[in-house]
Each structure stands twice: as C-alpha cells, then as structure tokens.
C-alpha cells in the first residue's frame, strides 16, 4: 500500500542528551539547542561527495538563526533533529530544524538558519555548487505552507 509520506524528504540527526548538557534545573540548557543545529548541519554536509575539497575553498556562512523552544529535554532523552531546506537560491538557502523526542514524538524545538556560501579568502558570496544544491533540493519543503512556523 503506497502512503502519502510527504515529509520523508528530510535528513535526520540523532542525539542523546548527556549529563553534561543538563543545567541545575535538570533540563538541557537552551544554548545547546543552537549548537545541535550546527552539528546537524555539519552532519548533513558530510553526505556531500568531495566534502573535504568543498571545505578547503568554501565557507558556509550563517546570516541569521532562530530557535523556538516548545518542551524541555532531560538526561537520556533521544532527540531526533529533522532537517529540511527551504528557499534554495543561487547563493543562499535556509535550513529548518524540527527537534522531536524519539520515544514520545514530543516536539521539543524548532530552528532555522539562513546561510550562504562565501569564498574562504575573499569572503565574497559564491554560487552553491551542484552537489550541495542537489542535496538541498532533495530535502526541500515550502516553508510558508508547513505545519509548524519556523
């Protein structure tokens, strides 16, 4: 039976909340969520062929980030960070992050990054290479019409 599993176009990064992530209020401190966004982004890029070559000459620059916190996480929680892309243009793109606790499906946080590529030396904006563009398009969604507002 074929299902309408529209949002399976995503990259998933898994993370287990460690004791060192927890503050005195027994929850993962919110700064860690932003760090996880960048970790998930790095993990996504590892899927690129010629990744090493890519990072020698090109720098991924962050122009803007947003995090919205919906629920807390505690030590031992398995978090799934689902990554989608949006507004993929010639030099810029957005990444959308949906944080979910694996066991309960509870929505934990929503994140967004506005990014672009710049030359390592000149810091001038450069076009997204086809390898990265294809990767981003494979997980692209229409942000304006999504269930969650990022």
């Amino acid at each position, binding site marked *: 039976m074929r299902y309408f599993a529209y949002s399976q176009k995503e990259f998933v990064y898994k993370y287990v909340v460690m004791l060192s992530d927890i503050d005195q*209020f027994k929850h993962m*401190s*919110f*700064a860690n969520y*932003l*760090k996880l*966004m*960048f970790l998930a982004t790095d993990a996504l890029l590892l899927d690129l062929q010629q990744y090493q070559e890519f*990072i020698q000459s090109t*720098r991924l*620059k*962050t*122009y*803007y*980030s*947003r*995090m*919205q*916190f919906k629920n807390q996480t505690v030590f031992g929680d398995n978090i799934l960070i689902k990554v989608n892309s949006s507004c993929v243009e010639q030099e810029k793109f957005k990444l959308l992050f949906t944080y979910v606790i694996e066991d309960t499906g509870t929505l934990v946080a929503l994140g967004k990054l506005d990014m672009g590529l710049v030359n*390592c030396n000149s*810091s001038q904006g450069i076009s997204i290479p086809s390898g990265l563009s294809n990767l981003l398009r494979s997980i692209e969604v229409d942000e304006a019409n999504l269930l969650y507002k990022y």
Partner: protein
Amino acid sequence: MAHQVYVFDKIKVFFKHTDYYGVVHPYNYLEWMSHARESYFQDLVPDFHKICEQRIKMVTFKVDLEYLEDARFGDEIGIKIYAEKVKKLSFDVIFEFYNSITNKVLARGCQTLTFLDGVTMRPTTIPDELKNVVLKYEKVCG
C-alpha cells in the same frame, strides 16, 4: 525618557571560540547571550537567585540572532543589553554585540522570555522584582 543600557564587556575571543576558518562560530553568540543575560539579572535584580528557585520559572521561548560581521581570535567583545516589548507575561531582551576596539556591530540578538508557574506550568505574570528593573531598560519603539 531614554532607556538605560547594561553593558557586559568581559568577552575575549579564544581559540576554542573559532571555527575551521578562524572565525567565531555562531553558536558562541548564544552562549555569550546566556552569560550576559544572567549577569544583567544578577547585577540588577535583588535576590535574583532566590526568585529563580521559587515557584515562578523564567523560560526562554524564542531566540533570534543576526550575524553581521566576523569576529576572530584575540578580539574583545562587548554586549549592550536592553529590553523591549515588556508585557504582562513576557518581554524581549535585546543584545547588541560589538567589537570593543573598533565599535563595529558584530551581531544582534533577541531573546523572548516568558514566565511559568512551576507547579501548574501555566503562563504567569512577570515577578515584580524583575519587571521593575526591566522597565528601566525598556526601549519603547515607535
């Protein structure tokens, strides 16, 4: 009446803050926002620690950051802090990161803080001790 601005100017960029390209990694700004915010409240709100341990919990609902200029190893960074949109249940804390030597603005951030009753976990009003301080630092827009 002009609003007050709190300055947190204790940040030095170390190697651990930089990324593969020698530039301060963006997530450091969120860590620095946390430090600066806690310093702001600890310095200005009497018995801030006691308030945190009471029934009312301060929760970060949303964080926005705009990255404008690169910072690098050795830079000294200051943060100007003030409040906006102080309402009954929430307010925004605004952060302006600047290079202490050149005064160039490096980044701008905004944290929306809300308050929950620690028992019922329902939204509740900002504690007066906190609100009285925040109002002095509120930039009224428009």
